[in-house]
């Protein structure tokens, strides 16, 4: 369970405050969507949960299963179960995708005091997950995300999510840059991971993604706060009326 209480955040080197006392709870097994206009602080929220350093937390706390993660570095948060699917996954030239996947899986296992994966087990796990997402073997041999299309990068994010089996998944604008077929594949990948022990926070600007990943809860974010919470019908309502009613231009 993810609980965010009165979170106040500014950009580290500037006076600009982005999150202004945000409260949010995502229960195990829940798929919560956050919708909001550009600049409302959605991506900042995802980065702060994952532990990016460019921000300064002025107040509040973020609890994962009751434990405050704000003191942890990003790698410790990942090992504790937080996974952020990036809006713009980074290209890392020179690092083979398979090398990276194995390093990530084993680093998390080590951090949790588990034995490292044996290579045959690792390859089997990757191949199984890759098949489900329609990821070609050739992509796994290339350097991480280098030369991947937008859709390939997003599928690679979901592959990592499947392999790392986090308890709290955050998807930051996962639909951006995807055509409808890629969107369906990615959504199916996410839906396959839904279970009662895993929470999802799906951040999106458009309702479109939520046709494929049906949320349990929809939150509207504006000016660094959650300003309205409802069921999945709230997303449809927003699609019609826009964000104008929430104190921001559409």
């Amino acid at each position: 369970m993810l609980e965010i209480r009165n979170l106040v955040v500014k950009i580290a080197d500037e006076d600009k405050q982005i999150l202004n006392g945000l409260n949010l709870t995502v229960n195990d097994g829940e798929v919560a969507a956050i919708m909001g206009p550009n600049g409302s602080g959605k991506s900042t929220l995802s980065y702060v949960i994952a532990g990016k350093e460019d921000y300064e937390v002025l107040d509040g706390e973020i609890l994962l299963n009751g434990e405050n993660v704000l003191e942890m570095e990003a790698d410790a948060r990942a090992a504790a179960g937080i996974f952020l699917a990036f809006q713009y996954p980074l290209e890392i030239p020179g690092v083979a995708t398979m090398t990276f996947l194995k390093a990530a899986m084993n680093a998390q296992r080590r951090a949790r005091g588990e034995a490292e994966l044996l290579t045959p087990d690792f390859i089997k796990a990757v191949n199984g997950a890759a098949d489900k997402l329609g990821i070609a073997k050739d992509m796994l041999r290339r350097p991480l995300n280098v030369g991947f299309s937008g859709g390939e990068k997003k599928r690679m994010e979901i592959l990592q999510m499947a392999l790392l089996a986090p308890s709290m998944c955050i998807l930051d604008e996962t639909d951006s840059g995807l055509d409808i077929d890629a969107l369906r594949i990615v959504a199916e990948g996410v839906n396959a991971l839904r279970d009662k022990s895993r929470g999802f926070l799906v951040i999106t600007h458009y309702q479109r993604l939520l046709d494929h990943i049906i949320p349990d809860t929809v939150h509207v974010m504006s000016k660094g706060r959650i300003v309205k919470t409802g069921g999945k019908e709230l997303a449809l309502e927003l699609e019609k009326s826009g964000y104008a009613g929430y104190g921001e231009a559409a």
Partner: protein
Amino acid sequence: MSVVTPLKTAAEQALSAQFAAAKAELPGALPVRKLREDAFAGFEVRGLPHRRLETWRYTDLRGLLREASPLAESATISAAVRARVAALPAGGVRLVLVDGVFVPELSTLEGLPGGLSIHSLADALVSGRDDLACVLSGPGVASTDAGLMLNTALMRDGVFIEIAAGTELAQPLTILSLASGEEERAIFHRSVVLAGAGAKATIVEIGESVGNAASQINGAIVFETGDESDVQHVRMITRHRPETVQVQSLLATVGGQAKFESFALVCNAGTLRQQHFVRYAGEHTEIGLRGVNLLGGSEHSDVTLVMDHEVPHGTSREMFKSIIGGEGTGVFQGKVIVRQHAQKTDGNMKSNALLLNDGATMFNKPELEIFADDVVCGHGATVAQIDGEQLFYLMARGLPRPQAEALVLQAFAGEAVEFVQDEALRDMVMAEIEAWLGAREASSVVSAV
């Protein structure tokens, strides 16, 4: 009338005295003796290179060399030397220099592949072969360098390798040059590789120190390669005392329709100046110079290149990657000269540095001197820090910071290492890089605790 006499430093005075005392016993037939005398006379006019010389601007050898150590006159074959030789990977021809002196009993001289002949440089210098002075002088662009002049004057030994036309060496040939480090000594060595037309070979040059005394090393390697030859040179300069000061010159004259590739890994090398002087002697030749410099502590690594395109249709690729921590200083000076007749020259030069902390420094000085009008030449020099976004991405997947950094750095260096064609050598270079990064990773874990 007053005469201005340049003030000589203590080291310069000592070098003059050493040359005067040693010139009679240094090996060489008459033309070589003349070469030595001329070179030393040239050195005496110039003195040790210093920062007011544009080509030595960032490596002030005069300031660095407070004292000239006594000349190493023979090889000190300690237990540590033997142990290092024994640890070389098996297979292939190995030639061992200790304190700049060729040691036949530690080298492979029997059962050499056909077409390969090996002598000590000392033997070659007294042999009286008539192309010697020409071979030793190398490309014209090297002729005014005082560091190389000192090497020419004082070179004691090395290896003289001839690869006959059409010969393909199946396995790399390794030259291991060890400083015994039993006492502080100045080591002057030079090796020569003559590859005939169509010859194909990989020459590995490993320069290391064993023992605890720091050495002053002035080394040179000369390549003269024929038409349609294909020569790879892989150099690893590592495991030296931090106080070691060395100059390593590479002189290459490459024939037409030929390939010449040189790669150099530098780590734990103290203060080092590498200078490459390369001449295109024939058309349609491809030359690649690449390297990785890993610096920490107060280490200093200078890579200075002069690529002389004298003839048309030459291709040159240079790529140097520097990772600099501590108070380390990296220098890259790359000069590409395209002479008037060298049309259709295709040159691309890159120097990329990552600075790991505030005390680290990099000087990049790419220069193009183009006198032809139909060429494609470009250069790019960057100095940056580790990409924080890449680091966050890897950490968000669970990699601890030191491991994430090591992965990014390994990938950064790996881009240049990819050009080492021999897989075993490539692995050997990467293993050395990984060990350096691992040591850094371990020390950062300790400092974090």
